[in-house]
């Protein structure tokens, strides 16, 4: 009888322990805040700030092009299921407002670039799109603002995680500072006269302004605008007269045009640099920090040889 009682007690104890462990885990799993980020770079920021407390879904995945993205019904579903939706703003996602309306979501929409001073599009002779340059994340100083906005939004949506979010943010900001130092160092190593490249996508304006680098582009911001002979001629002339040393491809545009310009000017073709999205997981630019690091390394390699 006594033995039996003790076996029963042991069984209860084990059961109890199991439940005690499982419940909080289950509760935690139930607690993950569902959020949506419109594209991979933004998503990376949100993941770093939110950590385990959020479950991030992306609309435009890695290697995707948000300028020409066509949302699908599945995306509307993702929006409807989310509690917070992070968008870049500055008209980066031309399709997002309609999608939000169509999805009928009750989520709060957070513009990650709030508080960032926008740059104008630097095209003197292109008369398309006189507008704002949306690629604000290219400057790490701006990235800090993104991260702060994200943190504040998450705290509002999930006050219980305030401490976690603040800690994550602090950690991440430290990492950002480290990368920023790397970038500045990399730039310093490049002789001042060589701090300019041609790239086919006018997406690095903020980087250039922040770190003293010149990016010259043959096309406008969106990958959809078509090019004219005059523009190509100008670029070639400019490369030749200013002795711009390198031409860079990036992950969303016509590489053949780049090759043509490089062939005709003798400029070096640099590697791939990332502007609008991260690389696929396992690639060299699968997080924002990796992306900035990758880009500066590519730039240095091409320009300091």
């Amino acid at each position, binding site marked *: 009888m006594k033995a039996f009682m003790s076996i029963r007690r042991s069984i209860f104890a084990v059961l109890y322990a199991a439940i005690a462990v499982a419940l909080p885990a289950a509760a935690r799993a139930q607690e993950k805040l569902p959020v949506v980020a419109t594209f991979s770079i933004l998503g990376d920021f949100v993941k770093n700030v939110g950590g385990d407390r959020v479950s991030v879904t992306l609309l435009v995945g890695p290697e995707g092009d948000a300028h020409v993205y066509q949302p*699908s019904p599945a995306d509307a579903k993702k929006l409807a299921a989310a509690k917070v939706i992070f968008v870049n703003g500055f008209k980066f996602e031309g399709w997002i407002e309609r999608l939000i309306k169509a999805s009928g979501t009750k989520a709060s929409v957070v513009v990650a670039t709030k508080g960032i001073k926008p740059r104008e599009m630097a095209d003197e*002779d292109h008369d398309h799109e006189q507008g704002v340059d949306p690629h604000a994340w290219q400057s790490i100083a701006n990235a800090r603002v993104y991260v702060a906005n994200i943190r504040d939004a998450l705290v509002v949506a999930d006050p219980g995680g305030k401490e976690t979010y603040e800690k994550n943010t602090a950690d991440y900001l430290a990492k950002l500072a480290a990368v920023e130092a790397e970038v500045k160092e990399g730039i310093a190593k490049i002789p001042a006269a060589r701090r300019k490249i041609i790239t086919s996508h006018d997406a690095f304006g903020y980087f250039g302004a922040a770190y003293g680098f010149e990016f010259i582009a043959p096309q406008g911001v969106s990958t959809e605008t*078509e090019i004219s*002979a*005059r523009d*190509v*001629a100008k670029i070639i002339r400019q490369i030749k007269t200013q002795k711009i040393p390198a031409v860079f491809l990036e992950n969303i545009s*016509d590489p*053949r*045009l780049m090759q043509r310009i490089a062939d005709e000017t003798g400029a070096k073709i640099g590697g791939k640099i990332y502007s609008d999205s991260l690389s696929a997981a396992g690639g060299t630019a699968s997080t924002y920090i990796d992306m900035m690091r990758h880009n500066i390394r590519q730039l240095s390699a091409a320009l300091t040889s």
Partner: protein
Amino acid sequence: MYDFLIAPFVEFEFMRRALVGAFALALGGAPVGVFLMLRRMSLTGDAMAHAILPGAAVGFLVSGLSLFAMTVGGIVAGFTVALGAGLVARSTELKEDASLAAFYLVSLALGVLIVSLKGSNIDLLHVLFGSVLALDDATLILIAGIATISLLTLAILWRPLVLECVDPNFLRSVSGAGAPTHLAFLALMVLNLVGAFHGLGTLLAVGLMMLPAAAARFWAKDLTSMIVIAVAVAVVSGVVGLLVSYHSGAAAGPAIILVAGVFYVVSVVLGPVGGLRRHFVPGRHLEA
């Protein structure tokens, strides 16, 4: 004058290449365009631009963003659609236009499906379609090669092709050459289109095939002159369009096509054969 007309081509290699590319397209594509127009297949070009998607998509799935793989895939898909449509039109009650529409729509849907499977939302066709300003050696050779093949094929198939257009029943009754000729012509069309898409983009490819042909209609009474005029219009449009793009900053492809469009409008209004001129200014009648 020199500065305006010649200097751009002397100074920049990409301009010279663009000229050669447009020239090759004019030589090979304009005659094909004349036949397409006469056979009432003028909208085929646009249909083809969509029809090649599944081929390009499969190429993409297999080799990633390899232009070679996607172009080959596009050609295969184009052949399948064009030849399938041609065969159905020949052996059933359905006419050419409907059968082509049916095939290309199915093909397009298939293509979109395949692309969405991979998950990435790269606009495949955007990648596949080139620009006249970015012609590298391989592409130039491709376009020039296709032009040569086109001219040779048209020269060889001239008689049965004309017969097939004018009086297919007669051809059927005296020879079995009708079907192979028809299919060879369709294959030639696909080759021209896909090659031109790859090198020059859809607008330029279809535009330089069809607009000069439409313009030539108003100046020529017989087939040979029509083709010569179409080629001439295409060549001039290419040159003038490139110069316009150079001096005014207009996008290159559209500039060339708009110049061709101007030729077309002028032809409709002023052309002596079947245009509007006779309509409004009939002229006094002759003695006999």
